[in-house]
């Protein structure tokens, strides 16, 4: 059980900065997910916790101890690798026991922990097999088991599900969550898959270009992304962005863009100001679109359906608004057909607005 904290941690490879001034506190017992596109520095951050990468600048603490110069084996962590990294010439039992033997844990204790882990992960039948005789999912469980038997203060997982097929991934995801609930140990989990991040994380740290963009519980990231990157990365299908500008209307302004008009949301009135001609970027999540009807103050779109993907209870509609592609997720009862003209609306409270220069959310700017 331990906290992990990054204090202005930077990692450079020559000229390339992989992780840039990362400051982040991971709470004891938390399931923290690092998410971001390839090359965003999430795996490097994880490997720095493991001690597999040197830290160029800053301090890294596990618990109260600064671990910058502590060897991986002395950090009281266990890591599950994307490729599992099982020892191919050892049986499952030996794989599980290897770390304990090296630490001179008494034989009876090793046997007990291996048996416990095997029971938790349903590996009892396979203890005497070699890794090559196991399926992908079983290998993954052995890799998890190898971490469990160590009873570490922090679990580190580097995209552990990416080599599994879709069905097994969902199962194993649940298994890891159950494991976390049971052990209540700090877990740091790296993934590029935002769905995995949303479903698993107590908190999620979104990274891009080596920088931490935002950290918070999944719902916070979804509801109030701090910038355009987080808004576009969290949520599936991704958020639509349309450039809009303020236009004088009555005694204030409203927002207009190609094919879209919307009144200024009250909560952002101050941040937007009253000057006409200010450009902004408006963000709309596909699932917040409705078609027809009046639902109070809304952003209104004149859209033409282009491609319709039928998903059962919902339809994913690829449409164009004044030549721009947008994606809307609508109930399939509307039976939209390609070529249909649609009046789409998004409730005003669901609209996100971003400053086009800083990419920051106006809501975030208004608050800070």
């Amino acid at each position, binding site marked *: 059980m331990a906290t992990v904290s990054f204090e202005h941690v930077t990692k450079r490879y020559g000229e390339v900065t992989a992780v840039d001034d990362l400051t982040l506190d991971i709470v004891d017992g938390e399931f923290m997910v690092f998410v971001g596109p390839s090359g965003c520095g999430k795996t490097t951050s994880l490997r720095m916790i*493991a001690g597999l990468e040197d830290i160029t600048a800053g301090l890294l603490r596990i618990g109260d101890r600064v671990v910058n110069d502590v060897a991986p084996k002395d950090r009281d962590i266990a890591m599950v690798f994307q*490729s599992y990294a099982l020892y191919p010439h050892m049986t499952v039992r030996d794989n599980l026991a290897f770390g304990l033997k090296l630490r001179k844990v008494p034989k009876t204790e090793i046997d007990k922990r291996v048996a416990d882990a095997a029971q938790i992960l349903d590996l009892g039948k396979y203890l005497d097999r070699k890794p090559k005789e196991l399926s992908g999912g079983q290998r993954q469980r052995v890799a998890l088991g190898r971490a469990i038997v160590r009873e570490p203060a922090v679990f580190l997982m580097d995209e552990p599900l990416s080599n599994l097929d879709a069905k097994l991934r969902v199962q194993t995801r649940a298994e890891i969550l159950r494991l976390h609930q049971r052990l209540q140990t700090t877990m740091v989990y790296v993934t590029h898959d935002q769905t995995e991040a949303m479903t698993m994380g107590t908190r999620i740290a979104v990274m891009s270009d080596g920088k931490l963009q935002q950290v918070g519980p999944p719902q916070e990231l979804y509801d109030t992304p701090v910038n355009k990157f987080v808004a576009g990365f969290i949520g599936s299908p991704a958020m639509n962005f349309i450039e809009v500008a303020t236009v004088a209307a009555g005694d204030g302004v409203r927002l207009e863009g190609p094919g879209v008009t919307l009144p200024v949301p009250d909560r952002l009135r101050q941040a937007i100001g009253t000057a006409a001609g200010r450009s902004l970027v408006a963000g709309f999540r596909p699932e917040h679109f409705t078609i027809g009807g009046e639902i109070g103050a809304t952003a209104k779109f004149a859209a033409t359906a282009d491609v319709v993907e039928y998903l059962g209870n919902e339809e994913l509609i690829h449409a164009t608004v004044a030549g721009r592609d947008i994606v809307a997720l609508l109930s399939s009862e509307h039976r939209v057909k390609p070529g249909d003209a649609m009046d789409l609306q998004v409730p005003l409270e669901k609209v996100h607005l971003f400053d086009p220069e800083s990419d920051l959310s106006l809501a975030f700017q208004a608050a800070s």
Partner: protein
Amino acid sequence: MTARSRMAGQGTALLPRRLGRIRLGRLPLHLVVIGLIVIWLIPTIGLFVNSFRTAEAATSSGWWTAIFQPAQLSLDNYAHVLSQSDIAPAFVNSLFISIPATIIPVLVAAFAAYAFAWMDFPGRNVLFVVVVGLLVVPLQTTLIPILQLYGPKNLNIAGSFLGVWLAHTAYGLPFAIFLLRNFMGSLPREIFESAAIDGASPVTSFLRLALPMSVPAIAALAIFQFLFVWNDLLVSLIYIGANVQNQPLTVVISNLVTSLGGGWEFLAAAAFISMALPLAVFFLLQRYFVRGIVGGSVKG
């Protein structure tokens, strides 16, 4: 009716016919391979047949005539060679030289290969290039300087087994390190990282992971090295020289030929006696031999 013709009769002729076409298509390939093997083996077969013939027969007619006149063949040459008093000790000497001269370089190379592949130290790549670069140094250029070093004024190990072991170790190491480093370098990095987190020191990682996972490459290398040392004449001749007690099989066999070139029929028989052990080793470890050669390219 065979199973295949029955299948053809039932209208599923496609499969057998296609198989037949593939076989026919491969016929030229097989012919070429078989032809190459025959050409490759003819000198050895000739020597083998001649090893059963007298010197007169061998000089007066081609070895293939013996195939039609089996009466020419006898075991006299083998009997003569085996009756030489120094053959049995020479065989033992050969083993005495070959086994340590295989184990020492393979072991040293394994340590070096692990370090070159997985340990960070300054000048690692330069050092590796230097080691591999030593492959181009002809063995012959080293004979005189090393013999001087082994001489009575210096180490005084000329004529001893130790001198030959060290020489073979030095000659074998560049290739051995090269082969093993490339194999060990292809092992997955995560395994060593995982071991480091599990608490393994570099020595433990080497002994418990790298070494067992490199068995195919090590076995292949050991076979190469063993064959090289077993068949070696030059190195033993130079460093053991006239010390009759320590002479290996190759040196003793070459002594069967008189200075006037007589007695070469015994040489043929002796060559096959000397070949028996390497052949046995090869057939026993053949599996590793093939796997080791492709070991670096196909990660198993």
